[in-house]
């Protein structure tokens, strides 16, 4: 009952004209960003964040806009997967497997419509799970002390290291670089300046936005520059086919199962849409054993599963971000950083102290998904037409927006140069197969981790045993150990199966 009251508060925030407009804009931009190969949700959110910040939106409005871009992109990614055989974003890789064969045989319209409905069902299902679980989780987390928080973050990094990226050690290096970047600047406990190299711009820390945009957007432009060749991508015609009621009935359990899988994987710290859709696809294929020879050739189940899962994971990854202050994916790490820029600390108290933010966001996601269903069914042809925007026109806009966004924060050219330098660094990291999301996670959580570690040890007077003290710390330590060992045990179990390398989205 209480939840319904809070939800009503949320809708009163989300239905304010300004926020309603931002939901529309966010969903539109998200679908567009998701569908254009090259810029995924993480870049889209990164580029829009400084603009939203500089335009002086209240925090809940900025979050509603940026979150709209995030889950909107999970819808958009499928368009280029299905029509171009090029995933629009990392979460839509699995969608190409069955989506493209469908459009090849003239069922593009059916594939787009079915995946839109699956996406919608996945999102809505995950949102319901979110409404039920988020308050519970935040009530549990409210009793967490500093030791528990230290463990939570170690757990998050462990999940990230073992599940994301090419090699665990490379993910760990990424996290450590992020954590070390977070220590730059004046130390809040003692006022000591750390690692500033005497540069005044670093005295209050390395600016989060500059790092995010440099690492992601600028390095992406460099990667596009490297890959670019006069591309003759052929857009498969959408055709007149449409989803039938029988199709929807046929995939109803697939969608339901994939929604739950996607949500749970989304909630796990660090793992997002790409892993969720891969796991959902794999498990559906296994469940259909004996009848799965059409998978990969245009089976509607193989199309519905990853789409429901990647949308569900987008909602799922918001749960730990809002309730624990620990992001569930790379993009939510940026959303978390956005909240911190507005001086709002996400965590268990968010639901009590800033219900307009937590519940406003959740309510806006209900509205946003309805908007997205509308954009992706009747208006789909509009987005299909936008797919043919040439990179010669798109890239200058991306470069311009990154520069304008970063300059507008402090009005200092130093940030622009620093951003380009970070872009080179990010590009080289990519080329050596380091994922970039761990760096951002480390950067966002670094200060919180250090603060909690120092607080825990000042409670115990310097005794590290405080980290293993009380049932909750045991549970979290055991979870960390499981996350550390499970993948290698699993690999041992399934020896012979080739493990699929996954990238953070």
């Amino acid at each position, binding site marked *: 009952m209480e939840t319904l009251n809070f939800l009503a508060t949320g809708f009163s925030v989300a239905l304010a004209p300004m926020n309603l407009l931002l939901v529309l804009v966010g969903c539109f931009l998200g679908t567009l960003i998701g569908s254009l190969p090259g810029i995924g949700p993480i870049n889209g959110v990164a580029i829009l964040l400084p603009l939203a910040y500089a335009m002086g939106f209240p925090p809940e409005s900025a979050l509603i806009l940026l979150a709209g871009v995030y889950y909107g992109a999970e819808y958009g990614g499928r368009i280029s997967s299905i029509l171009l055989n090029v995933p629009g974003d990392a979460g839509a890789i699995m969608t190409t497997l069955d989506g493209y064969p469908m459009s090849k045989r003239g069922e593009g319209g059916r594939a787009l419509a079915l995946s839109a409905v699956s996406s919608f069902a996945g999102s809505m299902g995950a949102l319901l799970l979110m409404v039920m679980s988020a308050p519970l989780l935040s009530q549990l987390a409210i009793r967490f002390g500093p030791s528990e928080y230290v463990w939570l973050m170690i757990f998050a990094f462990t999940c990230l290291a073992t599940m994301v990226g090419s090699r665990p050690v490379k993910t760990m290096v990424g996290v450590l670089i992020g954590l070390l970047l977070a220590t730059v600047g004046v130390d809040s406990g003692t006022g000591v300046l750390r*690692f500033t190299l005497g540069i005044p711009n670093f005295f209050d820390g390395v600016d989060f936005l500059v790092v995010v945009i440099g690492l992601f957007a600028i390095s992406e*432009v460099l990667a596009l520059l*490297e890959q*670019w060749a006069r591309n003759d991508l052929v857009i498969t015609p959408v055709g007149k086919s449409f989803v039938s009621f029988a199709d929807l009935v046929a995939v109803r359990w697939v969608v339901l199962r994939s929604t739950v899988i996607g949500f749970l994987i989304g909630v796990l710290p660090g793992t997002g849409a790409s892993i969720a859709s891969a796991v959902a696809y794999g498990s559906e294929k296994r469940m259909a054993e004996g009848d799965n020879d059409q998978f990969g050739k245009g089976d509607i189940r193989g199309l519905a599963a990853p789409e429901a899962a990647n949308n569900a994971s987008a909602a799922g990854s918001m749960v730990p971000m809002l309730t624990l202050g620990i992001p569930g994916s790379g993009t939510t790490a940026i959303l978390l950083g956005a909240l911190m820029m507005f001086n709002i600390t996400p965590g268990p108290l968010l639901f009590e102290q800033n219900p307009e933010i937590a519940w406003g966001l959740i309510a806006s996601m209900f509205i946003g998904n309805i908007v997205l269903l509308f954009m992706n069914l009747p208006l789909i042809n509009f987005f299909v037409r936008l797919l043919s925007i040439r990179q010669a026109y798109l890239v200058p806009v991306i470069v311009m927006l990154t*520069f304008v966004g970063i300059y*507008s924060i402090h009005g200092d050219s130093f940030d622009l140069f620093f951003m380009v330098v970070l872009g080179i660094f990010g590009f080289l990291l990519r080329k050596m197969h380091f994922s970039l999301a761990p760096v951002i996670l480390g950067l966002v959580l670094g200060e919180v981790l250090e603060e909690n570690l*120092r607080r825990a040890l*000042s409670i115990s007077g310097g005794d590290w045993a405080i980290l293993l003290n009380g049932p909750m710390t045991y549970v979290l330590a055991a979870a960390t150990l499981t996350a550390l060992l499970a993948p290698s045990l699993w690999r041992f179990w399934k020896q012979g199966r080739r493990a699929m390398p996954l990238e953070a989205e």
Partner: protein
Amino acid sequence: MYDRIFAGALLLLSGLIVWTAVGFDVPFQYEPLGPKAFPILLSVLLALAALWLIIRPSENDWLPDRKILVKLLSGLVVMGAYAALFETAGFIPATFLAGTAFSYFFGEKPLRAAAYALVLSVSSYFLLKDVLQLNVPVGALLGG
């Protein structure tokens, strides 16, 4: 090979961080850990990870040829110039130059690229400054 070079750099970096952190002058401190311990802990972990990468590096599959290196470098030069001109020359001239260059890099003919960049820079200036009310530098050329 790249892995080894990078790991070597990280090893050096973690050494430098420990060196710097040990040298912090902390005039007062209320808790046992202080500002030194966390960075030192992180650099020790980083050094261990770097050592592991030196012992077992991944194969490198990035072998850019001359053409790609030239492309990347010219992209970087344009971005550097954009950063340098953004404030001094102002948004419109800087965006015009950078926009022309990037449009050209991605396959547009020079004249059409310039025309596109001109429209983009002028229309974005008014859109960003007047509609979105962002801090966009006018620059010396246009009397800002």
